[in-house]
């Protein structure tokens, strides 16, 4: 039975930028009118490059940063403006795992102290706390003697396990993972991803997985949203996105991986991404898009359903589908195929 656990509706987060007095106020439009739904027990992926606003979106959903406007609905309840006791109760169902394991743990605290902090904040009596900390550590594969260790005595992979143990200790239902394996070696990343998948099925968790690494997202996610400069440009099931991406930005992104499918024309993006402070008018991608036409610089495309659960925000989907390039200077084809490590699947 498919149930929506989290629904994000028109979420907006702008950061004011301090400017000199008497000049016009400027904003960094980090997240600009984003909407999507996350199913229970699924892994929802958010892909984007730096400046796309993906981390801001993750933190806004949990209200670690307060959204400027829009709604976050969890289990049918609008949690956007919850306060006080209600809010504490709600926040116990969430957690956040940060990218850099070393800086997400207080260096002056032992593992036990770090992992039990959320319990203490929730008022769990100290006798019960140790037991639950041990359970959590066990779930992530860390034996008891880690309790007294300090972060500087742990490896990157172990630190991240502690961070995950801390995120699990209050038995959350929804976890936002912001690039949890980016700082880790390939072999450790594999171990940790397996652990995350095991935990998900063992505890019935729902993940919001933020990453710039397409291969990881393509592996572990069920549904993916692609973000560019604060807007979601494409939203669909993971297998669908990799088999047939429809938005030109998604296509360019996927052209950087060796496992590009042949259903679309691969190309390289030229130039630098624009700044989130002054995004281009109309479709934010129009300055680098090879399929851009006149309407693209005037009007922002809406994220619209293309088929079933596949949503794209683009004016010229027909041109893209036919591979009819409008702006040759913005188009640089993918250079020769080289053998990739994808020799064996």
């Amino acid at each position, binding site marked *: 039975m498919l149930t929506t656990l989290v629904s994000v509706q028109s979420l907006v987060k702008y950061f004011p930028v301090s400017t000199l007095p008497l000049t016009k106020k400027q904003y960094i439009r980090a997240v600009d009118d984003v909407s999507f739904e996350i199913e229970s027990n699924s892994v929802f992926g958010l892909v984007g490059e730096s400046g796309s606003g993906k981390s801001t979106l993750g933190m806004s959903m949990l209200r670690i940063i307060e959204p400027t406007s829009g709604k976050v609905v969890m289990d049918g309840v609008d949690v956007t403006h919850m306060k006080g006791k209600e809010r504490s109760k709600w926040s116990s169902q969430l957690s956040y795992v940060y990218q850099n394991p070393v800086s997400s743990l*207080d260096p*002056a605290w032992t593992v036990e*102290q770090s992992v039990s902090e959320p319990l203490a904040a929730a008022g769990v009596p100290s006798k019960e706390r140790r037991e639950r900390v041990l359970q959590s550590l066990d779930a992530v594969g860390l034996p008891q003697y880690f309790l007294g260790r300090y972060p500087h005595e742990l490896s990157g992979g172990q630190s991240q396990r502690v961070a995950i143990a801390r995120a699990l200790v209050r038995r959350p239902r929804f976890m936002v993972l912001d690039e949890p394996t980016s700082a880790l070696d390939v072999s450790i990343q594999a171990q940790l991803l397996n652990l995350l998948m095991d935990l998900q099925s063992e505890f019935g968790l729902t993940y919001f997985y933020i990453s710039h690494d397409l291969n990881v997202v393509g592996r572990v996610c069920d549904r993916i949203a692609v973000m560019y400069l604060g807007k979601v440009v494409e939203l669909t099931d993971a297998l669908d996105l990799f088999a047939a991406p429809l938005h030109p930005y998604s296509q360019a992104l996927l052209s950087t991986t060796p496992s590009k499918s042949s259903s679309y024309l691969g190309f390289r993006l030229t130039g630098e991404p624009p*700044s989130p402070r002054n995004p281009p008018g109309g479709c934010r991608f129009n300055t680098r898009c090879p399929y851009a036409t006149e309407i693209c610089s005037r009007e922002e495309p809406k994220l619209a359903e293309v088929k079933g659960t596949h949503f794209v925000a683009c004016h010229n989907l027909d041109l893209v589908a036919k591979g009819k390039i409008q702006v040759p200077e913005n188009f640089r084809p993918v250079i020769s195929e080289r053998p990739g490590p994808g020799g064996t699947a």
Partner: protein
Amino acid sequence: MKVPNALSGTLGRFGRTLRPLFHEKMFVAGFVMVGAMVVIAVFAPWISPYPAQGEGQTALTTCPQSAAGICPPSWAHLFGTEQTGRDLMSRIFFGIRTSVEISLLVVMLATAIGLAVGLTAGYFGGIVDEALMRVTDVFLSFPHLILALVIVAVLGPGFNDVLYALGFTWWPSFARLARASALEIRNRPYVKIAKASGVSNRSILGRHILPNAISPLLVMISVDLGAVVLAEAGLSFLGLGVRPPTADLGVIIAESANQITTAWWYALFPGIFLTVLVIGFNLLGDSIRDRVDPRLRGFMGTSFIGRPLAGRLGLQRRE
């Protein structure tokens, strides 16, 4: 606030920081110098040859050279005697006691006030920050000399005079450093995660911000201990501080000023001990700074200065 838990964590890290320090010559030298002075300060009543005189009892000893009682070093008085015939060595030892006592108290007071003000300002930001920083600015602009004069006028000279004068003028620099630390620490992921978990501000301040802010302060504390000793000696030298009969290095040096051509021992010995004490503190501070500095690079390094500076100047990133 369960401070002991957090402290033990901090100490755990200090253990890691401090142990290798003993490999460095500068630290060992400083440690030995300061250690010797502290031992003298603590055990002054027992190791002084004439403790009573150290504490202020006057005594006239037979002294052929001078009627005033100032005698050169002899077997009875290894450092000689000072103007009321008291044994100089004992006076110096008790003077060190005063110096060490005052500098510890002043630095403790300054640290306590500085941490309280600085951490609060840095953590909460906004109007709290502005208000507290303006108060800090006011105190920063008081030269301790003037304040000491004012306090002497009000309270009369003495130990307390020095304590208040120095204590109230010394905390602003600690506050600023603590504020800078708090500003940086509050943005660290573990603080954000704690806030998201619903941990109270008070708890975060005491258990996360405070233990992590102490490291950079440690350097300032050790160097300032030496600076306070000098400042205190200076105040006493000018008569604004500790008054006789309490022993004090600054007072002794002041008394010796007139006799410097005839009674060389009178100025030399207190000077040596004062110098050793201050250099010792400085060496300790320097070696700790050298050890801690690479870690400080994160927030005191150029990337911390460059970006906000660029933002302030309105310089845009190129597209």
